């Protein structure tokens, strides 16, 4: 199902402005969801108070969650006329996700950055991206000498490229910083945010050594036709204003066995993702056989994100 969405999105990207297949699919989904939507609109009347007194994610029962997801789905239907499905895939026992990125292969095309925005429904205006691609000077590993606003053809002979996103740290300073536990590390290592619990103090953003967190200073906007309807409650559902968000290794995909959107978009195969606890996984093989480099290792946060050479 979500693979289909991904294909649709890609087609839209290629044939810009057409996307007829997608439009008709959305209409179909809208009709399908119409019954649920009308039922849910009456719920939306009581929404402000329910939303205000909504408890922390970890204190919600399954029943609570069902009601909340229905309320959120109805809100999107009301506001955008788009039928979305909010689900909540659980971490899988024996899985610890990790990322490895080949610094020698990355060409700095930023396709990961834009695929991420599309997949994760990040705001288009103001424009928000979880991934920052650094154009690095050859001969230096110092990110302070990098350039994030480069333009023109890539790669250039003088540079190499280093995409940076949330490193899902084992000792995450952002998790410790949060005064209300609105952000935490899941058992599979993914650091998530409860968008309805965050009070918006931005201490986590100050604490992060990877510039991985993003705050919604303004109401995030995504065009209805660009909304990815396959949404995780703790990942890519549409966020409210005034809360923090971040990369979740696309947990709504990866917990179902799919790859993160950034990896699928990469034309060079620089990105490897998988289960660190599985000795045969690609990411484990990379860490065991390649020369691995950890960004800001001196910050002591023990990331689950590795750069490698070769």
């Amino acid at each position, binding site marked *: 199902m979500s693979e289909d969405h991904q294909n649709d999105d890609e087609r839209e990207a290629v044939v810009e402005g057409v996307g007829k297949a997608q439009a008709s699919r959305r209409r179909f989904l809208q009709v399908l969801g119409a019954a649920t939507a009308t039922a849910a609109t009456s719920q939306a009347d009581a929404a402000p108070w329910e939303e205000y007194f909504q408890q922390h994610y970890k204190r919600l029962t399954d029943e609570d969650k069902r009601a909340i997801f229905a309320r959120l789905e109805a809100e999107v239907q009301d506001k955008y006329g788009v039928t979305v499905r909010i689900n909540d895939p659980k971490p899988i026992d024996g899985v610890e996700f990790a990322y490895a990125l080949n610094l020698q292969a990355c060409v700095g095309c930023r396709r990961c950055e834009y695929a991420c925005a599309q997949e994760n429904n990040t705001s288009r205006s103001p424009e928000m991206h979880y991934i920052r691609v650094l154009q690095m000077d050859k001969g230096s590993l110092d*990110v302070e000498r990098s350039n994030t606003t480069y333009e023109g053809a890539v790669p250039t002979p003088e540079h190499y490229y280093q995409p940076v996103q949330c490193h899902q740290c084992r000792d995450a300073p952002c998790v410790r910083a949060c*005064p*209300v536990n609105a952000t935490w590390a899941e058992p599979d290592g993914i650091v998530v945010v409860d968008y309805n619990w965050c009070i*918006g103090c931005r201490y986590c953003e100050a604490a992060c050594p990877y510039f991985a967190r993003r705050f*919604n200073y303004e109401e995030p906007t995504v065009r209805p036709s660009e909304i990815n309807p396959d949404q995780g409650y703790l990942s890519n559902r549409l966020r409210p204003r005034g809360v923090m968000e971040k990369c979740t290794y696309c947990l709504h995909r990866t917990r179902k066995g799919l790859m993160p959107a950034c990896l699928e978009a990469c034309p060079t195969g620089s990105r490897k993702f998988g289960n660190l606890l599985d000795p045969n996984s690609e990411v484990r093989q990379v860490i065991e056989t390649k020369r691995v480099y950890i960004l800001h290792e001196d910050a002591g946060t023990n990331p689950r994100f590795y750069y490698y050479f070769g």
Partner: protein
Amino acid sequence: MRDFIAFVRSSLGAVVHGSSAYYRWLAFLGVWMLLGCAAATYQFANGLGVSSLTDQVPWGVYIANFSFLVGLAAASVLVVIPAYVYRDAALYDISILGELLAVAAMVMSLLFIVVDLGHPELFWHLLPMLGILNFPQSMLAWDVVVINGYLFINAYVVSYLLFSKYCGRVPNKRWYFPVLLLGVVWAVGIHTIPAFLYASLGGRPFWHSAVLAPRFLASAFVSGPSLLIIALSVVRDQMHFPVREEALHRLRQIVGVAAVFNLFLTVSEIFVEIYPGTSHSASMRYILVGLHGHNLLVPYIWTGIALSVFAAVVFLARPLYSRPKLLLVACASAVIGVWIEKGMGLVIPGFIPTSLGEIVEYSPSFIEFCVSAGIWAIGAFLYTLMLKVAVPIELGTLRLPGAPHERIGLDPVRGAA
């Protein structure tokens, strides 16, 4: 209980009756308060997008003022310790005025935190049981505890002392002294925890420094008593409160030593950052000389340093500090100097460059300016009203009908009886 109602009624009476200068002052503050409320409402309705804050610089003038104001509360502990522990009679007379300044400072710093939140209406998430307070892991949770605690401690002690005096009774030491001592210990937290809030972030080299907490303490010991000297002069001239020269002298000695020590710590920090020239010194270079052509805050920080140096010289040279007007100017310079250094001068460079080397500069938006000015006006308004009640009670002119009308409790030792 009836006495307490009379106390509240007398207080309200004292607050609404005053000279025309008093009304003009309140009206002036009122205008800024209204402007601030309007701006805060606008921000609440439209979100923090109306600020100049970015993902690169997520904290600005609000958190800067917060950092400064937790220091200002030092005015309280620096008069309480000499007055109650060392029984300094001159400072004992004015200790209530110092504690009230701490109350006003705590209220302001809490307001600055509230306006900085993306969802201030969700404050209940911080309440233990009802919400979740991430204590003791989060330094911000510690901050919530120490600031509210310090506000409560000071508010309780001054209310009790003033109420006792209003009733013509000698305050019972058992009822306030343990809390007062707790306040002295708590004061260490109120200056140290905000410093740790910054210093604990390993990914921000500019803040990640062991000397930051001592710097917070030293600069607090400059700004708090300096502002208190100004307040005392106003109270003496406008409200005829007999402030002893010794009290001003003692405070001036404290700020003199603290100002020099603060400059020394600042110089140590600058030296350690700049001399070896590691990449971690980028923020310090940004604030002092600019970085890659970005130098928005350079004139700002040098103004702060110049004011601090000027104040320190005046505080230490007898021919200078013995001129009351010049002393007041020096006090104002010291307060502004610390406000620059411990405010935006500390907060903004911590984010420049970002941990990925980006440089995005920050200066407050018009809305941020109005909200900040409004909160300062609220603090000044509150302090004025509290003084308007406290001074006549201290003077013995505001009393419960039938209570003796002389001044009470010059000697804290006698208060123990």
